[in-house]
């Protein structure tokens, strides 16, 4: 197992795109967060913590790319055959990959959240406190997005396809919900869409008005990620590479 993990870590570390994408996760998160808190006059009663963490919307795009590439480049380049010849126990390969990707994603996410928190402290006085649930929850959210992407990448095995499917699932479903005027249906969609449900973890005010409770929302996202990973693993174990 240590060997598989080491191999996956080496593969991830030695590709230049990984470094850029880690930077993009952190920078994207901080940039949108800073834009939100410093930029356009925010409403008086706004949830300052949530606003400062809105960079996760952008940061997650880089997470999706990172996790998708970790799987699909192996198929694009044909390296997967070498990998599986060297480590025939596919479950271990997969566990190593998931572990490496999650570790990198969590580190990048933690950097982004820390930067966003600093921006919030500078923008507001006294500024929102550092809280376990919204801040660590956002890092967890990014980690789960990485796992969801990993699972779907194992199913689709194509870079463009994976990224398109994941981003559609994340972004366009809530965009359609904005067109729906029936509040019951809107809530239903916001409750089951992985992004809006998962990001409920960031809320600190008006918790009753949320479509779904914070931890339950993160649970919904975890359900998606788990489902995708289970199907992806089954296919990975059975299909020819």
């Amino acid at each position: 197992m240590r060997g598989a993990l080491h191999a996956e870590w080496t593969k991830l570390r030695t590709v230049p795109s990984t470094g850029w994408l880690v930077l993009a996760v952190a920078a994207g998160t901080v940039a949108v967060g800073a834009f939100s808190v410093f930029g356009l006059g925010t409403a008086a009663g706004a949830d300052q913590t949530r606003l400062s963490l809105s960079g996760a919307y952008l940061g997650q795009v880089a997470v999706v790319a990172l996790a998708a590439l970790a799987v699909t480049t192996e198929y694009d380049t044909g390296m997967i055959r070498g990998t599986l010849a060297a480590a025939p126990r596919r479950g271990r390969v997969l566990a190593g990959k998931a572990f490496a990707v999650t570790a990198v994603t969590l580190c990048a996410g933690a950097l982004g959240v820390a930067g966003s928190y600093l921006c919030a402290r500078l923008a507001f006085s006294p500024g929102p406190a550092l809280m376990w649930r919204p801040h660590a929850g956002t890092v967890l959210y990014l980690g789960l997005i990485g796992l969801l992407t990993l699972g779907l990448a194992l199913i689709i095995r194509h870079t463009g396809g994976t990224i398109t499917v994941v981003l559609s699932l994340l972004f366009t479903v809530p965009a359609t919900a904005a067109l729906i005027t029936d509040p019951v249906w809107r809530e239903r969609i916001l409750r089951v869409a992985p992004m809006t449900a998962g990001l409920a973890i960031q809320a600190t005010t008006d918790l009753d008005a949320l479509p779904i409770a914070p931890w339950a929302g993160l649970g919904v996202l975890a359900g998606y990620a788990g489902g995708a990973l289970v199907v992806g693993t089954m296919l990975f174990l059975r299909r020819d590479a």
Partner: protein
Amino acid sequence: MREFGQVLRGEWTKFRSVRSTVWCVLAAVVLTVLLSSLAASATSTDANTAPRFVDEFSFVHQPLTGDGTVTARVASLAGGHEWAKAGLMIKDGAAQGSPYAAVMVTARHGVRLQSTFDTDVAGNAGTAPRWLRLTRTGSSVTGFESTDGRTWHEVGRRDVDRLPRVAEVGLFVASPLDVQTRKTGAGSNETAMIPTRSTAVFDQIAGDQLDPDAWQRTDVAPTVGPRLGEPGDADGTGQRFTVTGSGDVAGYGIESWIPPGDDDMVRNSLGGVQVGLMAVIALGVLFATSEYKTGTIRATLTASPRRGRVLAAKAVVLGGVVFLAGLVASAAAFVIAQPAMRANGYTPPAYPHLSLVDGPVLRAVVGTALFLALLAVFSLGIGAIRRRTVGALILVVVLVVVPQIVGPVVSLNAELWLGRLTPVAGLAIQQTRERFDSAIAPWAGLGVLSAYAVGAMVFAIVRLRGRDA
């Protein structure tokens, strides 16, 4: 020219023989239609259960038996609203909702003859001072206007059924609510109704049956429920009155009426395109980057060394196919959505039935196809510049999709500016109602997207010429 035809044919062959192309086009059409109809069946309105007219104003009146004529000059009209109204009215008593006909000057919309909450005839432009005359003959009421009190111009003649033999006739002033809608979050908004007041001076009041001592003033207002406007006032005697009023006399068919629902039915019917566009972005990006990934770009450029032409041919093939697929998708989405929306309360009078051949609907449906085609060409350009699927895909998605999600979270201002400056501006082509959250005019929005597409293509051609493949 023949050479370009050959390049075009080559690109078409490459385009149609790739499996992912077929999938992307199919996904774009299916997702657009499916999600549009889903959204339509989950959208409802209760606008038609709201009151269908408003009848609130300040009325200085006296009874008129049988036929007769009233004349007066509106010497001035001052007040807060473009639809402030001052003029002569004949009405079945002073109770709210009773039949009426009135000739009036408005603050900014000229002279009007309006009756029974549903008929609106425009006269000449201009405002006070203006002479007005109202003549009743049986059930027919005629309105006249004059700029000098000597030459009269007929504004119109309406039949008012159920007008009793003894009706109230007199001077009226109304000034509608100022409606300000504000966004309070993604998809939710708050409407503030601020009453306005207007004051008009009437003089040279004359009529064959008028009794200078019989004038009385009534605030016509709802008998139950809250008033929308404020109480009015009147001062004067006999031939000269200063009347202050608030509220409006209007309903469906009268231009100053503010209908209770402001949903954009057309835009809502085409909402699925926001999901379908993802497939179009992927299609555009992959059409460029897959040639680099597989290396066919070298064969392509050997076969047709004029590189600009290759990209132009790609854009024509891609744009054409996406336009046709988009047209099928948006027309189908619109047609399928209509019965569902009707079942959910989108019916006349608040929401007139729409048909594909109505001007604004046609613009929105064809415009949606154009939007998708331009978005595909923009994606192609970015793909050709970046040469790598991931980078190009992410760049386009961050420009197109993320603003729509982040904007509403930050503030209305952020949403409006992102809606003007990013390629999403092109979606404005779907708007058929001017709303408080409209970021940009329809064609201007499509223009912004075109600028992005042309810019990306020009840069891509320059880069393709200047670099090894």
